[in-house]
C-alpha cells in the first residue's frame, strides 16, 4: 500500500475510504458509549461524536468523491448548520437533565452550577447587597 505507486484518483479514493470508515466508527463509538456509560451527562459526551466529527469526516469524504469544487461550499454550509444546532440542543437536554436531577452527583468531579444555584436561591429573598446577604445567611 505505497501511495507513490498509486495514481491521483486512487489516492483520493483511499483517503475518502479511510474517512468514511472512521466516520462510521464514530457512530459505533457513540452507540457503545450510550450503552455503557452510567448517566445522562456521560452519555451526552459520547453522543456528540457522530454529530460533529463523524459528520465532518463523512462530508469530507463526499467532497473528495465528487471531485468538483462547487460542492465544497454546500458541504461546509451543511456542517456549519450542524455545528450551530448541536450545542443548542445539547444545552437544552443538559439543562433539563440537571434540573430534573438526572445525574449521579458522586460521579461529578466538579459541579460549577451548584454554587450558582445556591446563590440564586439564597439571594431571591433578600434585597440587600452581596456582603450583607452573605452575612445574613450565616
Amino acid at each position: 500500500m505505497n501511495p507513490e505507486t498509486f495514481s491521483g484518483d486512487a489516492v483520493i479514493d483511499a483517503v475518502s475510504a479511510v474517512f468514511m470508515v472512521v466516520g462510521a466508527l464514530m457512530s459505533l463509538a457513540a452507540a457503545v458509549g450510550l450503552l455503557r456509560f452510567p448517566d445522562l451527562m456521560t452519555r451526552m459526551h459520547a453522543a456528540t461524536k457522530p454529530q460533529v466529527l463523524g459528520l465532518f469526516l463523512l462530508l469530507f469524504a463526499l467532497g473528495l468523491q465528487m471531485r468538483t469544487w462547487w460542492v465544497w461550499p454546500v458541504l461546509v454550509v451543511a456542517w456549519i448548520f450542524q455545528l450551530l444546532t448541536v450545542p443548542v440542543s445539547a444545552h437544552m437536554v443538559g439543562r433539563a437533565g440537571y434540573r430534573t436531577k438526572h445525574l449521579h452527583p458522586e460521579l461529578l468531579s466538579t459541579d460549577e452550577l451548584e454554587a450558582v444555584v445556591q446563590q440564586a436561591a439564597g439571594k431571591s429573598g433578600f434585597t440587600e447587597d452581596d456582603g450583607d446577604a452573605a452575612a445574613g445567611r450565616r
Partner: protein
Amino acid sequence: MMQIVLTVTAVVLSLAAGGAIIRIARGPSLLDRVLAADVLLAIVGAALCIDMAVNRHLNNLMLLVAVSLIGFVGSVTVARFVADRRELPRES
C-alpha cells in the same frame, strides 16, 4: 474498494443503530431516549452521506440538512417539555 468500504460501513452503522435502539427501548428516563434518538438521527445522516459518497451523487444533501433540523427541533422541544413537567409538582 468502494464495495468493501460500503460493506464495512454498513455493518458498523447497523451495529451502532442497534445500540442506539437498545438505549431507546431500555433508557431509564425520557432524556436518555431523546439523546439516543438524536444519535439514531446522526447515524441515519451518516448512512445518507456514505450512500452519496459511494454512488457519487448529491440527491440526499437537502435530506441530510432536514434530518439534522428535525433532530434539533425535536430534542429542544422535548427538553423544554421535560423541564416544565417535572418542575410543576415541586413548585406547587
